[in-house]
């Protein structure tokens, strides 16, 4: 009874490994197929949902508000499905936001660099050297995206339990290593680790509900108690706190809401200027 999160520097490789792991373990596969449901539940068009997961070097990307709401909707949908247990998840950036849950095994797969270069050369119809440069640029964009959006560098190995480089290790062997590792007792779900996951699910659900009105909220949950942190001007503090408390209180699973509203110094400075 575990959860396996797989991340990679190459989407197709990640998918192939995740599919094989799911087949070998008999776990359910959780991937981008859920994005349609996420789109209809959040009323954000599916292309925008997909775009929020794809780093772009272009300056004309999704507006931050839309992107954050789309990502929160994805996170909420992923968390609900992870509660089912026995899941292999990839392609939904779950390794960046499912944290502190002991029965989650996090794996990063690194594809052969030469293979990625030649794929890039074919895709973009460019020479090998140009493709190598493009790949480096793409990696830098991906790294910046993970830092900007989740505050974590996804290339940092300490984010994972294991990193497997496929330069010498064959996919089947990588799959075997993952399947064996997940069978270790420490990756079995326990009452406490399930509670941690439930808390995370509730906090992201509350955040998503509040984001329609307040985009700057940070939410943590412990059982049925929810703590919301936000910023407000002195004159709007009471009203905002009451609104947040009322909105969050309506969500199922929430019995007590605590709101901490700090001073919004930037807006205050802008208004006094």
């Amino acid at each position, binding site marked *: 009874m575990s959860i396996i999160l797989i991340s990679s520097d190459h989407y197709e490789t990640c998918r192939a490994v995740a599919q094989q792991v799911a087949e070998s373990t008999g776990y359910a596969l959780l991937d981008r197929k859920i994005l349609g449901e996420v789109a209809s539940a959040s009323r954000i068009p599916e292309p925008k949902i997909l775009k929020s997961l794809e780093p772009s070097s272009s300056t004309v990307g999704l507006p931050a508000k839309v992107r954050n709401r789309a990502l929160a909707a994805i996170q909420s949908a992923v968390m609900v499905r992870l509660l089912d247990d026995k899941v292999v998840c990839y392609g939904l950036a779950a390794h960046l936001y499912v944290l502190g849950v002991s029965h989650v095994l996090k794996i990063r797969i690194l594809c052969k660099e030469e293979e990625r270069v030649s794929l890039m050369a074919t895709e973009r119809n460019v020479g090998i050297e140009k493709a190598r440069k493009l790949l480096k640029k793409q990696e830098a964009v991906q790294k910046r995206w993970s830092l900007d959006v989740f505050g974590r560098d996804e290339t940092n190995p300490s984010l994972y339990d294991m*990193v*497997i480089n496929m*330069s*010498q290790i064959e996919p089947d*062997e990588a799959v075997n290593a993952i399947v064996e590792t997940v069978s270790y007792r*420490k*990756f079995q779900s326990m009452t406490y680790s399930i509670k941690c996951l439930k808390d995370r699910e509730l906090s992201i659900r509350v955040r998503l509900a509040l984001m329609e009105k307040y985009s700057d909220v940070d939410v943590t949950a412990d059982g049925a108690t929810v703590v919301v942190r936000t910023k407000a001007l002195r004159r709007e503090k009471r009203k905002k706190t009451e609104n947040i408390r009322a909105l969050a209180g309506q969500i199922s699973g929430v019995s007590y809401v605590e709101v901490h509203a700090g001073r919004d110094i930037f807006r205050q400075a802008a208004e006094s200027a």
Partner: protein
Amino acid sequence: MAIITISRGSYSKGKEVAEKVASHLGYKCISREVLLDASEHFNIPEMKLVRAIHDAPSILDRFSRTRQAFFAYIRYALAQHVKEDNLVYHGLAGHLLLKGIPNVLKVRVIADLADRIRAEMKRERISEEAARSLLLKDDEERRKWTQSLYGVDPQDSSLYDLVVHVHKLTVDDAVEIISDTAQRTPFKTTKQVRQKMEDYGLACQLKAGLADSFDNVGVKSEYGSILVYAKGNDHYVQRVRKRATEVTGRMSGVNELEVHAVRKLPLDVV
């Protein structure tokens, strides 16, 4: 039947993992032995060799022939152990020193900074602040050193076949994962791999013989035929040729020697 290099930061439990892997597989486990062998063989104080491969080089050091020569001596000493196969090496830069040998399983063992700080505080009886500062300085030294010699960051996961995070996974889990991977097909020593190890040993031996006098030289061997690439003018190349002939005359297993003048040293040379 494999060679395993284990790269680690201080207090990352890499040493413990390496020793247990070696014991589990019945392999030889070495680290400092390589430096002792190099020190004895080339009559250099061990401390000087340690500094050459541990401390980050200064600007002047980067162009120092001595440092490069020390490095060649250490690589030669390691190559002698590698020829015997069934080896776990957890000294510095094994994954880079043995670049080009196909069956080497390159592993990095990492631990959370907080766990490492706790271990350092306990062992050295120092404050948390001091332990943090020492660990970060040590990591930075190693990063600069690898960067200056190989142009790579030792924390880059793509340099290794496997990175194991000892936190949720225990030392024993890491041992099991590494031992299991080492026994898989790509890491088995075949006849071809054995030949590569022999060739690598020859190339390292000649490089060690040239390194004290020549810095722009690369060596490789194919089935005992040694190719030396020298970057310099005709006179320089002539001197390299003369010295290489002398050195190979004392070596066994050399079939042929060729010295080529090049503008840029090939990537697959030692």
